């Protein structure tokens, strides 16, 4: 039964196709299928293309480094470049991004250097970039928790009458967490200038979408909060960019939050320690490889004459240069001072931590016993 607003009974809604502007074959879709959104200018699309190519090169490089055991872990976003890059491209400098562990290429695209992105994955420290310069929160590991932080920051910006918008990235699985619900609801009630972009890559580690939720689309969830929701082809960077940009504009002009679902696919394993052969077929992955977001846009841009061999070569050169930088930053030995462990827990020094720091310092000097004795004595 379809939704009938006169009759207050709501049941499963009919399947709907995701909104798209450029289809799998690189053709633009008729206006009546595009949800009223306009295709971004070719220049914009070329820039998105460039960023996607560079991002993928980074992702592939880091995955390779991880396979070599040079990083503790790395969650790849291969295949999800359209969502990641569109989200970042839609941000203004004063906006804030709230990413997850999956969104390293979003960080890269917003200007974080490879060595700073990789600080956490190679185990130097829990997080390693400058949040305020880039206006990016630490990559969140506890699922959906960052969505609430985004709502809070957006609300603070609104209270201060700044035109800052917060955009947060979430996975399909993360929407099941209570924190996602609370974030959507607080945002809608407070009319917070925040945009939720759910990358529906159809898996939460091994758990497929139909074990995660029973609704028609994730975007439908927006109805229950009273905010607009968009179900978008997450491999169409043009559509993702157009829809996210519109949502950012709405948020900035006081129109409140938006929930955007980008339907995409996680081509790689969840992380290097995952074994996807246990839970999905190679054929499915292949199917989605053929819906590649970069190839699709490439076809369009080539057809438009915007992507010449020359331009492509320069993009590939930039990508290779970045890959080299990325490799280099793994060979440089990161300096990690064990005594820094005690530095940042509190803003004001605590005696007990100072004691423990002194203990470790002495131990590092090869004089653990002496240090313990010293501490014991000092406290008598």
């Amino acid at each position: 039964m379809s939704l009938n607003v006169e009759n207050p009974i709501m049941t499963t809604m009919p399947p709907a196709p995701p909104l798209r502007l450029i289809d799998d074959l690189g053709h633009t879709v008729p206006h009546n299928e595009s949800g009223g959104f306009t295709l971004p200018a070719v220049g914009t699309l070329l820039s998105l293309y460039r960023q996607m190519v560079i991002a993928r090169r980074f992702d592939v490089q880091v995955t390779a480094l991880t396979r070599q055991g040079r990083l503790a872990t790395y969650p790849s976003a291969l295949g999800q470049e359209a969502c990641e890059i569109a989200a970042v491209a839609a941000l203004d400098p004063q906006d804030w991004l709230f990413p997850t562990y999956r969104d390293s290429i979003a960080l890269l695209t917003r200007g974080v250097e490879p060595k700073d992105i990789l600080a956490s994955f190679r185990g130097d420290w829990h997080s390693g970039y400058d949040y305020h310069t880039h206006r990016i929160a630490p990559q969140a590991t506890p699922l959906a928790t960052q969505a609430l932080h985004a709502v809070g920051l957006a609300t603070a910006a609104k209270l201060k009458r700044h035109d800052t918008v917060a955009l947060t990235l979430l996975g399909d699985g993360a929407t099941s967490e209570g924190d996602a619900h609370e974030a959507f609801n607080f945002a809608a009630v407070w009319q917070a200038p925040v945009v939720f972009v759910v990358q529906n890559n159809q898996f939460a580690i091994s758990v497929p979408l139909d074990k995660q939720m029973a609704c028609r689309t994730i975007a439908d969830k927006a109805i229950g909060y009273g905010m607009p929701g968009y179900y978008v082809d997450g491999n169409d960077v043009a559509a993702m960019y157009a829809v996210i940009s519109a949502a950012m504009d709405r948020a900035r002009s006081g129109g409140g939050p938006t929930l955007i679902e980008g339907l995409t696919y996680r081509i790689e394993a969840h992380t290097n320690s995952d074994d996807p052969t246990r839970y999905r077929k190679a054929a499915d992955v292949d199917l989605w490889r053929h819906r590649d977001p970069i190839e699709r846009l490439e076809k369009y841009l080539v057809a438009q004459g915007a992507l010449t061999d020359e331009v492509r070569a320069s993009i590939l050169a930039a990508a290779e240069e970045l890959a080299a930088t990325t490799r280099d930053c793994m060979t440089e030995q990161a300096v990690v001072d064990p005594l820094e462990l005690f530095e940042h827990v509190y803003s004001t020094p605590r005696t007990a931590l100072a004691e423990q720091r002194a203990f470790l310092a002495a131990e590092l000097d090869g004089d653990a016993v002496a240090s313990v004795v010293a501490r014991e004595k000092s406290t008598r």
Partner: protein
Amino acid sequence: MSPNQPLQTGTAVRAPETLTMAAALNAAIHDAMVDDPTVVLFGEDIGPLGGVFRVTDGLYAEFGETRVSDSPLAEAGIVGTAIGMAMYGLRPVVEMQFDAFSYPAFQQIVSHVAKMRNRTRGKIQLPIVIRIPYAGDIGGVEHHSDSSEAYWTATPGLTVVSPSNPADAYSMLRGAIASDDPVIFMEPKSRYWSKASVALPVQTEPLDRAVVLRAGTDVTLIAYGPTVKTALATAAQAVTEGLSIEVIDLRSLSPFDDETVGASVQKTGRACIVHEAAQFGGYGAEVAARLTERNFYYLAAPILRVTGFDIPYPSPKLEEYYLPTPDRILAALSTWEWS
């Protein structure tokens, strides 16, 4: 305990008046909001109602919706959004309606509030105050009388404090709001209506210090929040038995003031810690363990813990059997070998 100082702020100095702890907390938030426009409040029922304990009474009317607002009913949501606000330069003061209702916010508190500063190498600070009315003795139904302090004190990155009287309530809450670090501010429910004469704005001891409330020579009795009153009553009662009890109000549970408490224990050689929470794994374990570690050769007897039993907090008709009393404390002390 050094004499109370007037607080150095723009806040007008008022004549001494008799205040409840709830009113002192209310005044602290009020004055902090006047002094610092970045202080904002939100939580469940803290707006027009003024909170179920009326701690935020009148603030909505005075400061308006922008700075004082009722939030949707979700504790993770309250703490999670407070984190985002703090990241953007505000100083949120949020209320968990009752101790047990802070538990939905546990992940946000333990995995983010406590760890954000460390994670970001000090680049992101979270000056958030999470107010938690706690403990029992108010005839509350289940889930309304938990003592949750051990969960927070076991979490590195948090500062955990609890006042026991109106002057401290004011001064400590102002200190907590002024702190650049997140503070779990535990308000003993049963003391909300306790009164004292205070001249506001008052500044008592620093936020991280314990105070000796009553000097004594034979035993150090250590308490905080709701049990300070019990400890003082015990000391008074002990006089008739010829026992001189020194009473310490910890005030700060994390950090623990080793210096003040250690000095007292070294003097008396005997100590007992009193709290409402269950004994097993309770905060008193840390107090006993660290005092013993650091002062073992001064101790004439083991440090005792007089606490709630190792059971869930009881229903109203049974709480009197659960709560530590002066008699129970004195009985415990009398089990020591007094050579």
